[in-house]
């Protein structure tokens, strides 16, 4: 029996070729969105541009909500099903950074280009692209730029939408700029934390163990590293950043450490967090300094099975295009879909050329493949091929 995906897979090479013709539209949206600073909690200007674009494409319900998400609906022929495509609008770069983006024949470079101006540019360009490809879906396509996703934002935008919308979402796709081949069908459990250490006023520097923030934080990290980490469920503690000190000749009195606990098991995340809290209390008691562990955000583990038709068809599409799927758990918008019980995937659009503290560089050529895989998957979802029996 012929695979029902056959027609879709057959059309991919031709689609990829046609997509090269819309390069400038995608790159323009990438530049115009990416050059608008959009740190978490300050996404409004980027959102305004996105919704303006949706309006220009005559989408329905072009709007924002009280969290600051940007939304538009491309109505389907029958409208029997609603597919939500989301890309987060916020970026790790603050509004003081020079947001200039440059385009070279093979790459686009600028702050936040990969994460996630490219993902958002795809969402902004999709109505135009589908029109140019003469693709009219039966399903309604809800296009969304989500606010307050990263860090302390803790996916507030997408969670707010899913908690409050009356629309019955059948499938979700989270679009990330990089990397092409990314296929996330599950989310791992995660607790994202900050540790603040500081010496109170009138601190007795003559007492035993009074060594300042750097040495104390070092001790704190060593104690965390002594905690036995299981291989099953897969678990890790990731130290992300550390800040302390102001120069020579002074004992540092304040420090900040950022870390994440990641695990396939929600219980393991909780258990480790409790252990780390106990270490903090012990160190605070010993040194008479203040040590506070602040939990910024938490994700539950979960997702759809690897054998779910949404995953198997996404893999078929990728394999047809010679894209090697990289199955990785996600901590992005996917977690919110999982919590809401909506089958969903995260996919990437292009490859990263370079990444530094001030800018990221994404390749142009893989974007056509990235777009073709996304659109093929959309068509498969639209036709019901990705539904679980």
């Amino acid at each position, binding site marked *: 029996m012929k695979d029902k995906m056959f027609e879709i897979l057959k059309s991919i090479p031709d689609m990829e070729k046609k997509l090269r013709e819309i390069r*400038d539209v995608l*790159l*323009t949206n990438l530049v*115009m969105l990416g050059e608008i600073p959009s740190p978490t909690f300050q996404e409004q200007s980027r959102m305004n541009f996105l919704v303006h674009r949706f309006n220009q494409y005559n989408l329905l319900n072009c709007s924002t909500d009280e969290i600051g998400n940007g939304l538009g609906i491309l109505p389907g022929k029958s409208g029997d099903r609603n597919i939500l495509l989301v890309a987060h609008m916020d970026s790790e770069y603050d509004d003081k950074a020079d947001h*200039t*983006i*440059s*385009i070279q024949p093979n790459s686009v470079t600028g702050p936040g280009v990969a994460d996630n101006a490219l993902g958002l540019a795809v969402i902004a360009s999709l109505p135009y692209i589908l029109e140019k490809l003469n693709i009219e879906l039966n399903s309604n396509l809800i296009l969304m730029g989500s606010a307050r996703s990263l860090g302390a934002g803790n996916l507030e935008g997408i969670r707010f939408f899913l908690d409050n919308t009356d629309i019955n979402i059948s499938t979700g796709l989270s679009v990330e700029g990089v990397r092409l081949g990314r296929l996330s069908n599950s989310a791992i459990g995660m607790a994202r934390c900050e540790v603040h250490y500081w010496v109170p006023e009138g601190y007795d520097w003559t007492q035993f163990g009074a060594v300042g923030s750097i040495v104390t934080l070092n001790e704190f990290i060593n104690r965390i590293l002594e905690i036995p980490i299981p291989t099953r469920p897969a678990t890790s503690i990731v130290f992300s950043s550390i800040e302390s000190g102001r120069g020579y000749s002074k004992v540092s009195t304040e420090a900040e450490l950022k870390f994440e606990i990641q695990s396939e098991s929600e219980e393991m995340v909780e258990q480790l967090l409790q252990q780390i809290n106990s270490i903090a209390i012990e160190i605070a008691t010993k040194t008479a300094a203040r040590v506070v562990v602040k939990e910024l955000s938490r994700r539950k583990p979960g997702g759809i099975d690897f054998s779910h038709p949404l995953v198997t068809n996404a893999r078929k599409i990728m394999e047809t295009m010679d894209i090697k799927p990289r199955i990785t758990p996600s901590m992005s918008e996917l977690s919110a879909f999982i919590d809401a019980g909506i089958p969903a995937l995260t996919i990437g659009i292009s490859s990263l050329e370079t990444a530094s503290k001030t800018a990221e560089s994404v390749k142009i050529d893989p974007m056509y493949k990235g777009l073709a895989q996304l659109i093929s998957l959309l068509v498969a979802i639209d036709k019901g091929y990705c539904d679980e029996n």
Partner: protein
Amino acid sequence: MKIDKWIKENTFHHSAFEDLDKLVKEKEKQNLKISLCIPTLNEEKTIGKEIVLFNSELMTRYPLLDEIAVIDSGSIDNTLEVARSFGADTYLASDILPNLDNKKGKGENLWKAIYQLKGDIIVYIDADIKNIHPRFVYGLLAPLIYNKKTKYVKAFYDRPLAFSEGIRPSGGGRVTEILIRPLFSLFFPELSAIIQPLSGEYAVRREVLEKLSFPIGYGVETAHLLDIYREYGMDAFAQTDLDQRVHRNQETMSLGKMSFGILQTFLHRMKSYGMMTDIPELSTILRQFQAHDDVFESIEQEIVEEERPPMITIPEYLKKRGNK
């Protein structure tokens, strides 16, 4: 006051022209052809983005432009290759009107665009704008499209200078404020209403451009303003606020050279208008100093503001345009 009235009636903000559907309809109604010219010299870092944005927004989505052309002074980087890869028409200035002696300068590229490009209106945009946006083009074209009396539209900005640590909200335009504005205020007070007379972005009707002589160097913008003012008066001008323009900051030494070239153009104009008769032969050597520890090194540079005659006097142009 007349200047205030002119400013009120002829100064716009680009946001007034955001309705590109309306603008394109009006352009088509008048059967206008519009060309964009980007003069370049070693601009490989910024040229790609300019072309992609203008092509996508102002040709593909809204057919406001009929051609995008890069006219290059002989870049030694990949400016032309990058521009071509994104679909611009690319020309080496020396290949246009090859029978004429070869001159090098931004003004030369602007002048040759009149011959090479087909537009009834030509809009000139510098290639070094880091925060390029379609408003840079439609903001300049709209006053021409909506008002047939307007012949020349100049950009002005809240000009930040780009610094490594971020963007500073004000500054720039030093030659304007220290040289041009005082000169205009002294001799052509009405022209002081032009907020940024030296900005490299402007749109002009062909019927005006072809009658202008073009300094090929620093004086081209100043000469345009003076000659158009003299011929048509202030009613020919409009200016549009394009918000911020992020560009490379120029060193004071470079601004000195620029001022020297502009002054030559200005004084030559004063003489030819009969406003200053006793001007001696002007020196073309600019002396500047550079300090190395305790030693001051004198640097001499010859800066000659050569001019191209009005394009309408060039036989090849008349032949190409069918002696219109």
